[in-house]
């Protein structure tokens, strides 16, 4: 069986297929053969110690990082050097960053409408209408005309989620979305993410919020040193971790 056949036979309802993905930063081998498939409407939580490659991995899915070996197929499109391919995939994949990365020179509403207007070619009215609906959904419609710098961290991150959703993506990637937030603001962001998961969005979430993982995830994937050490349902993962490395990690984060 050729590699190409293997890829196609495994797509089915899998919206993301990664096979033997490798990446190096200079000589540092950061991803050492990651194979992971994600089904439509699945919520996958990725956890692991820092430096284990989990952020790098989800950044390869929308080509913010380039992988050097292996295949990544997103919604039937294989990621190659072709820039139009990459832009097509990025329009279908929303991303939320640890540091929010809102555009500080634009008001909230324009942060959200910019991409629909220019990348989706929507008329301004439609884009603004959708943006206002999304701001309602994340609970801050009254902040539409403020600048990002005038909002709290939690509000900024909710705007960032609305900005990603405005492109009506099929997949949402979250790269440690609550790690830069003060404790009392984490809940408001997790609430939005929880609602999004229940609405049927396909999500890959890199996070240390184990409560969220237990409650929302269909599957938890544990990364260490560029490998997937273990993956399982939340119940099994927390109750019966099989690998020593996983047990050590869980004992460290659950007892602090």
């Amino acid at each position, binding site marked *: 069986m050729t590699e190409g056949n293997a890829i196609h036979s495994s797509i089915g309802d899998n919206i993301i297929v990664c096979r033997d993905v490798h990446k190096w930063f200079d000589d540092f081998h950061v991803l050492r053969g990651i194979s992971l498939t994600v089904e439509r409407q699945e919520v996958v939580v990725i956890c692991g110690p820092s430096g284990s490659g989990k952020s790098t991995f989800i950044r390869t899915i*929308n080509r*913010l990082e380039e992988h050097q070996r292996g295949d990544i197929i997103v919604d039937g499109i294989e990621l190659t050097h072709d820039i139009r391919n990459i*832009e097509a995939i*990025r*329009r279908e*994949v*929303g*991303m939320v*960053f640890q*540091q929010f*990365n*809102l*555009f*500080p*020179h634009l*008001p909230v509403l324009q942060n959200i409408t*910019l*991409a629909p207007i*220019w*990348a*989706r070619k929507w008329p301004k009215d439609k884009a603004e209408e959708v943006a206002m609906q999304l701001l309602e959904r994340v609970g801050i419609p009254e902040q539409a005309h*403020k*600048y*990002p*710098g*005038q909002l709290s961290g939690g509000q900024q991150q909710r705007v*960032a989620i609305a*900005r*990603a959703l*405005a*492109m009506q993506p099929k997949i949402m990637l979250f790269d440690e979305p609550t790690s830069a937030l003060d404790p009392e603001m984490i809940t408001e962001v997790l609430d939005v993410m929880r609602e999004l998961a229940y609405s049927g969005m396909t999500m890959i979430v890199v996070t240390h919020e184990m409560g969220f993982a237990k409650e929302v995830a269909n599957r938890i994937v544990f990364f260490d040193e560029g490998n997937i050490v273990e993956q399982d349902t939340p119940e099994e993962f927390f109750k019966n971790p099989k690998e020593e490395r996983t047990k050590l990690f869980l004992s460290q984060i659950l007892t602090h």
Partner: protein
Amino acid sequence: MSTVSTTVVRPPSPPGPVRWLKKNLFSTWYNTLLTVLAAVVVFFVLRGVLTWVLFTANWAPVTNSLKLFAVGQYPPDQLWRVGTILFMVSFLFGLSWRVWGGTVRTFALTLAIVLGVLSVLPISMSLTLRLGFLANPVLTFIGYQVGRTPIGKSLWVVLGWLLSFVLTIILLTGVEGANWLPRVETGLWGGLLLTFLLALVGIVASFPIGVLLALGRQSSLPVLKAFCIAFIEIVRGVPLVTILFMASIILPLFLPEEVRVDRVLRAMMGMTLFAAAYMAENIRGGLQAIPLGQVEAAKAVGLDGFQIMLFIVLPQALRLVIPAIVGQFIALFMDTTLAVIVGLMELLAVGRAVLEINVEWKLLNMEVYIFIAAVFWIFNYAMSYASRHLEMALGVGER
């Protein structure tokens, strides 16, 4: 419970003038000593300067040559063209004031007041000229009123300014063979008019070229990148005088006889390219200060490279380097005095020429140079003032 919440705690009220003086000027014995010493120095300097300006100095070379200082040897019977340009500017300032408000108001008012005062100044001046000056504040007022109508939109104002720029060039040069608008050789342009034109063209043209060079320098295309680096480093490595020389003396030697580029235009091109190289480096500084996360976020929502540059990176980068860019505009404005090297009669050159007009004026160079310095200072200060307010206006919501 309500008793707690009703008590509003206010910040301490600011100190009165007496306490302010005591705190800032007379807090310790040495502070008091410095205050007194400074006051004495300021008093004597001010008295000396004012006495000289008002009584000792002989301003005859300035007051008798205002036309030369303003427009050089531009034909007197064609001066209405310069007047028309001034009318356009006054009108547009009024319009911009109504539409944009803020700092533009200060500029519109200052211009209107200065020109209004000029019209009643007790120096020898024709009645037509006086009326011409007086018309400017009126036009500013009309422009302001027009700004209330549907024309008062930013787009129209910007178009108006661009159009006025084109009209200015056409009005000043004239049309070949037209009786009502005969050609005026650029050699006759001079004074503040020429200084303004050199600076304005340099500023307007060097900015986009600088942006393109800065982007080119960061490009991933090796040939483009090498060209931009070579251009920037070569131009930055030679003095402006050299470039002006090359543009006006050496360049024509290489060009065929038919391709005669006008002398003023050549100086403008030289200054523009010179300024663009420095502009590129300033803008590159701004580009490098934009966090990578901004570009990643823009990529992640599906914007293409051009859109990311236009909507995300450049607006933020340019805002960061406004002070540096304005500093460069000011330098460019003063560098126009170097055009005298290639025989152009800009403001400073007019000043030197004026001293030669009359034997009695020969020793009055102090008055002439101080006048020229004052003129430069006024316009440079205006630019610096505008830059500060622009920064504040654009800084909205920044962390």
